[in-house]
């Protein structure tokens, strides 16, 4: 359990956060640059001071301004992975990994060391100096160093932000493995929505020093507060489900999400695997009568929940059964012409090729 209640005034910027999140899992702090994410994380780590409030992690009080409690950063046992890796240039990769390990109250066993080295693919790098490593390799070493310090909490502050797209793809799968194989709670800071979608179990959306929305990925994807931050193209429902059936000939998989069933293209996915699917609002078509002769693979029945204007178009929230909701972006003229209103029964059309399914790699069954 992670409980943070903090208030800090710095110039014109005010950080004002009150949140409780369950651990373990990946808590994503998501928001634009300058919204206070790093400020919050540095307060959590104990690297900056001057706030009022409390920080409690798993029943341990790290900070309580009312009682004058301030546990120094070096005693909090936080595995902090910085945006710029911050490897020690005068130590080898092995020396960097050992640095935190040697200072842990209970140093990791040799087996644990090998496990982490294995998990992050660090074996070929051990003898090298950080100066000669690529950006992606550096971040992997930084992750390993943080993990081997036996942290209670792993803080990842935009660990992918300094990497180009290809290098990010080098690191992301390792982060997913960490999430799925280790029972360490993680706080993941990012301003990239797609990273949050891939990694998070819980999301805190921050804007201008405040948490404006909090919840699991599915509910956050529908939150109005998100819309101002991610931009119109990224808006859309995110659904967690698992693969029920897969047709190897066509590559199409039946993905069970709540009571609904979606046919999607999922590469290399075996039956039983968990997938997270983003249905972008602009790719979803609504119909008031059952369409005929379309190439669209998914025609779902749904009930219209709400209509909210967003920019020059409308966002329509539709319940496709059992509380599972999707968003569709349509023009105002379509809203008027189809006489859409809450409670209306609709057909929801989803192209199998327009959705992106992220496969959770480690867990074979849901």
């Amino acid at each position, binding site marked *: 359990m992670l409980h943070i209640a903090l208030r800090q005034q710095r110039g014109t910027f005010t950080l004002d956060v009150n949140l409780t999140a369950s651990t373990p899992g990946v808590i994503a702090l998501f928001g634009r640059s300058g919204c206070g994410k790093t400020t919050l994380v540095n307060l959590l*780590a104990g*690297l900056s001071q001057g706030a009022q409030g409390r920080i409690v992690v798993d029943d341990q009080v790290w900070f309580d301004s009312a009682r004058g409690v301030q546990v*120094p*950063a*070096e*005693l*909090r*046992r*936080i*595995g*902090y992975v*910085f945006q*710029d890796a*911050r490897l*020690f*240039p*005068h130590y080898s990769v092995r020396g960097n990994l050992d*640095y*935190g390990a040697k*200072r*842990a109250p209970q140093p990791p066993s040799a087996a644990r060391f090998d496990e982490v080295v294995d998990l992050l693919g660090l074996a070929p790098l051990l003898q090298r*100096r*950080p*100066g000669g490593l690529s950006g992606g390799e550096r971040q992997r070493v930084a992750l390993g*160093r*943080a993990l081997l*310090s036996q942290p209670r909490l792993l*803080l990842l502050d935009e660990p992918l932000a300094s990497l180009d797209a290809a290098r990010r793809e080098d690191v992301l799968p390792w982060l997913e493995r960490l999430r799925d194989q280790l029972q360490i709670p993680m706080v993941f800071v990012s301003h990239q929505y797609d990273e949050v979608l891939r990694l998070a179990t819980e999301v805190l959306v921050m804007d201008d020093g405040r948490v404006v929305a909090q919840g699991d990925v599915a509910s956050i994807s529908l939150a109005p507060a998100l819309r101002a931050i991610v931009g119109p193209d990224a808006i859309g429902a995110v659904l967690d489900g698992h693969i029920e059936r897969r047709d190897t000939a066509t590559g199409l998989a039946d993905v069970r999400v709540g009571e609904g069933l979606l046919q999607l293209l999922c590469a290399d996915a075996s039956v039983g695997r968990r997938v997270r699917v983003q249905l972008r609002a602009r790719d979803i078509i609504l119909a008031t009568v059952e369409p005929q002769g379309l190439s669209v693979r998914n025609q779902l029945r749904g009930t219209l929940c709400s209509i909210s204007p967003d920019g020059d178009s409308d966002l329509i929230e539709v319940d496709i059964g059992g509380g599972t909701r999707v968003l569709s972006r349509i023009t105002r003229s379509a809203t008027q012409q189809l006489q859409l209103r809450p409670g209306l029964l609709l057909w929801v059309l989803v192209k199998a090729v327009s959705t992106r399914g992220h496969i959770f790699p480690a867990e074979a069954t849901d």
Partner: protein
Amino acid sequence: MHTATVYAARMNWLGEPELAALRLSLDVAGRAVLLNLLPAIAIAWLLTRRRFAGRTLLDAMVHLPLVLPPVMVGYLLLLLLGVHGPVGRWLDQLFGLRLVFTTGGAAVATAIMSFPLMVRAIRLSLEGIDSGLEQAARTLGAGPIDRFVSITLPLMLPGVLAGAITAFAAGLGEFGAVVTFVSNIPGETRTLPLALYAALQSPDGDALAARLALLSFGLGLGGLLTGEVLARSLRRWLGR
């Protein structure tokens, strides 16, 4: 003809006065560097890593010897550390330590004059160290002393080395403060520049002066080159 050969012979060999001055200069400059090492690291660290009241004043104080006339510094030392001076009397009574007219006194004067050079070099290297590395060490469980010893100190070594060698090379040639504070006593305080000055004062000292000048020139150049090469290889070893 005869005087010319003697002149040539003398040019090829270092005589006893030159060797004595050389030994003394190395001794004084070496002691000055040792005296300065810890205070210079401490002050450089304070000036780069801490914000406190009076920081600008401390910074100015450290740099004073660069701008004050060396003779004035020597005079000040004489007032403070002389046998009747407030600090000098105390040193004499407690430890029987007399600095005036001694090699130790020459080392103290040289140390004060070369202190800013050392602080500046160490400070420069400290400023080049990303304080984020110290933060990272902190999150990995390293306390303040641990962080300094395992991260900050090794990374500032090139600066410490460069500073020490520059200060040593400069210390070999310190004149004004030394001659004012500890006078010009052969074998005790007559370092290379003082010997050079004495030679210039004597009617037949031209050859000696030339040899001493060459010697000083070689030492200075050699010192600076060695410092640069050492610092470069140290930086490479540190991976920077």
